[in-house]
């Protein structure tokens, strides 16, 4: 079993929920950690810690949803250990980094004995705790892009609902990222977390936004479409009905924040 930050696996090993005969510490492999890139495109080594994501000036400036969402993950102690690759490979439907990465068109690079393959993050998650990673492969890096490139105007927002402002897993989380030409939306990404077996994008909601000017009426429509796309379950954190309502509320809130940012620029 590959060992990344260990904040999940070591806990599962000590309480017996996981069994491993051999752990391979990926942190010892050189070149798997670090952030490099430009304003429009960048690459994160899979062993980059969440703390590094949260404090990286490049991430904060060009891909702010990632550092914002990262701050919701666990405590400072956990963020110092937990890694970006671990957060994705652990494949929690509520993974904090998943929705921001989805709206940044993330691609993951997997490497194994058969070579290297790159796949979009949308195809990486296959179920709760399950991914397209083969047993012999490791996730080595994640690449992000801003839709429309560096030239287009951009605004995004991350919204999440949790019982506490720290140390808690999301009940629902939402990321939106829009590219603008003037006030017209030329690129739209809407992603939902913790309301289905995997974090996912909502193409119907994105299609509604494309080519239109963002306004409160459109925001209401998009939120309803997103709510319809969600397939939440009832669990210890919240009921399916509550989650469903919260999808609408959070998408509305996220897009309203985007609208505010855009109107300020005009």
């Amino acid at each position, binding site marked *: 079993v590959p060992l990344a930050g*260990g904040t999940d696996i070591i806990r599962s090993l000590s309480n017996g929920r996981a069994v491993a005969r051999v752990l391979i510490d990926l942190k010892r492999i050189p070149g798997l950690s670090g952030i490099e890139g430009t304003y429009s495109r960048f690459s994160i080594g899979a062993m980059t810690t969440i703390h590094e994501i949260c404090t990286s000036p490049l991430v904060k400036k060009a891909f702010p949803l990632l550092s914002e969402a990262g701050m919701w993950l*666990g*405590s400072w*102690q956990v963020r*110092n250990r937990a890694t970006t690759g671990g957060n994705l490979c652990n494949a929690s439907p509520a993974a904090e980094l998943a929705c921001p990465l989805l709206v940044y068109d993330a691609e993951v690079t997997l490497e194994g004995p058969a070579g290297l393959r790159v796949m979009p993050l949308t195809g990486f998650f296959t179920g709760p705790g399950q991914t397209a990673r083969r047993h012999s492969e490791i996730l080595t890096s994640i690449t992000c892009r801003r839709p429309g490139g560096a030239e287009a105007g951009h605004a995004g927002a991350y919204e999440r609902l949790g019982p506490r402002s720290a*140390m808690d897993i999301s009940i629902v989380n939402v990321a939106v990222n829009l590219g603008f030409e003037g006030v017209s939306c030329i690129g739209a990404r809407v992603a939902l977390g913790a309301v289905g077996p995997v974090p996912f994008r909502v193409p119907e909601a994105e299609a509604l936004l494309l080519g239109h000017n963002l306004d409160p009426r459109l925001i209401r429509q998009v939120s309803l479409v997103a709510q319809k796309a969600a397939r939440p379950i009832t669990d210890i954190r919240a009921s399916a009905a509550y989650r469903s309502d919260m999808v609408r509320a959070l998408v509305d809130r996220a897009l309203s924040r985007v609208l505010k940012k855009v109107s300020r620029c005009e």
Partner: protein
Amino acid sequence: VNELAIRATVNGQAHKIIVLPGMTLLELLRDGLNLTGTKEGCGAGDCGACTILLDGRPVNSCLVLAAEADGRSVTTIEGLGGDSLHPVQKAFVRNAAVQCGFCSPGMIMTAVALLAENPDPTESEVKTAIAGNLCRCSGYTKIIEAVLDAACEMRGPGGRASHEE
């Protein structure tokens, strides 16, 4: 079981230690090295009582394998100060920020790391930093005051807070 030999610096002292593969750093510190100042609360990374510094960064030692400390530097509550108490420890005493005391070592380690990174934190930055350190006596107010007081003390005269509360 295959034992592993690791080299780690613990509180400034180089150690060569034989560890078991499944052993956590917390177990190594408490049971192997007798450094019982580090506490085990939940053993699951939720409470922060076992916080230590790994290469200067606060981590939950219950979520780190002893083997992962190979080649690293570990600082525990015993490694602060030296002959007298560390300024953060003194501030905790001065501000009566200790009730039952179980969370104190972890709380202090996080505070020491915060002040090393940010000598002049706001109250809200202190709260964010210690969000992963639970105090079941609920003595947070005094703890936060102690950290801010320690910050002030450590900056010394002239290092006034840049943000008034």
